[in-house]
């Protein structure tokens, strides 16, 4: 170095190195898991992974972009129906048709964003919900895909799905279990790519811009941040990601109906619950949130509407007593950050000895 700098910038913490190592170990365990685990665990993990991806994208939108959407089910539904369309109308294999889901969600996101971005705050939230309802009603008119009652993936398509034959022989399982393993791996891949992608984004200068826009739009514009472009970026990225996830969920579910695929409870209310109790505006929050959500659901699912009321009460309690979520509470008490995005300016201790 020609010039010895007095300062340097640090972005890693000791905890983040350990977290990185634990992540890699976990990923390896998860990849190999179908060899040991039963079908029930694989299905549970599929549910956890897909909800986590939805939660990460909603968190990107609301927690980082400040765009509180109640209409993410629009993209889950569009993604799922595009996948069904690809399989039923064009005879595609369901696995590549998942990509169609991402593309379809992106395509519907562009025109709807023009409407939604004219609205602010609570109006934006309601607007996105209305858009999702309109899409549900439109899709219910699509008679080839079952109209209002819905349809199932053709048996030939599910039986001959990519790689299922190989999984059947390797793990010695039946076709349905092989499909679960395949979708589980795809969900795992989607989780890893989503978290890695969002983490990467937050650590680039666009991540800084996103935080600046969320904190103060006028000031952000005054320091050269393209606030409008940042909004578009997070809206389109989360639409595409949510669409992919929706398609994947329905490859596993096999059966689709407009009411299920565009369900505001399943794809937005639960997702908001996960992000809010876990901790909005952090990557760790949704991870913690989805685990809590899964445990609550396993414990309370038999109690019907009591279950929803308990979820609501817990949500309210967290908002009152830990507004930054449970991860926010943990992070505040311990200073722990597993995915640090802070740029810390530290005095370069070596600068004196080096010259």
């Amino acid at each position, binding site marked *: 170095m020609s010039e010895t700098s007095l300062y340097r*910038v640090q972005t890693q913490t000791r905890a983040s190195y350990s977290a990185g190592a634990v992540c890699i170990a976990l990923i390896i365990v998860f990849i190999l898991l179908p060899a040991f685990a039963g079908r029930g665990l694989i299905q549970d993990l599929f549910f956890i992974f897909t909800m986590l991806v939805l939660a990460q994208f909603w968190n990107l939108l609301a927690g980082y972009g400040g765009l509180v959407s109640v209409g993410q089910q629009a993209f889950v539904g569009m993604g799922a129906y595009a996948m069904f369309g690809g399989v039923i109308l064009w005879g595609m294999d369901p696995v590549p048709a998942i990509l169609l889901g991402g593309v379809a969600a992106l395509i519907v996101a562009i025109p709807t964003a023009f409407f939604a971005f004219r609205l602010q705050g609570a109006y934006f939230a309601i607007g996105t919900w209305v858009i999702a309802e309109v899409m549900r009603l439109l899709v219910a008119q699509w008679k080839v895909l079952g109209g209002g009652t819905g349809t199932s993936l053709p048996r030939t398509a599910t039986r001959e799905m990519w790689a299922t034959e190989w999984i059947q022989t390797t793990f010695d399982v039946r076709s349905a279990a092989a499909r679960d393993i395949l979708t589980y791996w795809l969900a795992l891949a989607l989780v890893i790519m989503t978290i890695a992608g969002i983490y990467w984004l937050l650590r680039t*200068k666009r991540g800084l*811009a996103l*935080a*600046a826009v969320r904190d*103060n739009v006028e000031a*952000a*514009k005054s320091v050269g*941040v393209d606030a409008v472009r940042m909004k578009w970026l997070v809206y389109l990225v989360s639409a595409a990601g949510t669409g992919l996830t929706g398609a994947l969920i329905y490859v596993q579910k096999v059966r689709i109906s407009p009411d299920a695929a565009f369900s505001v409870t399943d794809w937005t209310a639960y997702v908001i619950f996960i992000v809010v109790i876990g901790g909005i505006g952090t990557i760790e929050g949704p991870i913690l949130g989805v685990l809590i959500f899964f445990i609550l659901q396993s414990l309370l699912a038999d109690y019907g509407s009591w279950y929803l009321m308990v979820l609501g009460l817990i949500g309210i309690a967290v908002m009152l007593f830990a507004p930054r979520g449970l991860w926010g509470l943990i992070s505040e008490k311990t200073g722990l950050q597993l995915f640090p995005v802070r740029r810390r300016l530290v005095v370069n201790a070596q600068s004196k000895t080096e010259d």
Partner: protein
Amino acid sequence: MSILSLKNVSKSFGALTVTDDVSFDVEPGQALGIIGPNGAGKSTLFNLITGNLMSDAGTIHFDGADVTHVPPMQRCLSGIGRSFQIPQPFDHLTVFENLLVAATHGQGKSEHEVEQECARILEQTEMADVANDPAGGLRLLQRKRLELARAMATNPKLLLLDEIAGGLTDAECTALIETIKGLHTSGVTIIWIEHVLHALTSVVERLLVLDFGKVIGLGDPDEIMNSREVKEIYLGIEV
């Protein structure tokens, strides 16, 4: 050639004209002070220059280009930096990150290219010790300093300061004046709105007086301060 040129710029909110046919030029490297009573339209004038507000009529030229209809982000890129009258920090980012946003986006550079420069600005504005603190928790003087530091981080040719000395103690004010003088000496063009007149007149070479959105005086600070209109309107003295 002047770096900033306003010609017949007007802005109304409903029936209220806040900027009324304002024209003036600023030469490169000059420091211009703007004074006027509360509600005279000083901050609105700044918002028109930065593009946070768009003018209803007239033209604004900056650095040889017509920027009348250019959005604020591009005006920042072309070299207009500003501080806000009420500090507007990015609360959840640290002080250092506040500067990083401004430097990377305001200059279109990578984080690595600007980090040493940001550290230097933090030292210059005496903010290095709070570099890693969240900006939302800062005290008033530090917030004011952050406004200045963040504007400096965009590497502006023209720096707009909006009541940066207001509410500070004399000692704090003196320190801030030194920093601003330093910037001025390094060649940055400055337009400064201020009620703390001794701070203002120790830096600026020209003074502009605004009242009810109109320019009612422009020239040498001493002459302006002694003129009849200013004493009457601004200082409220019957002459």
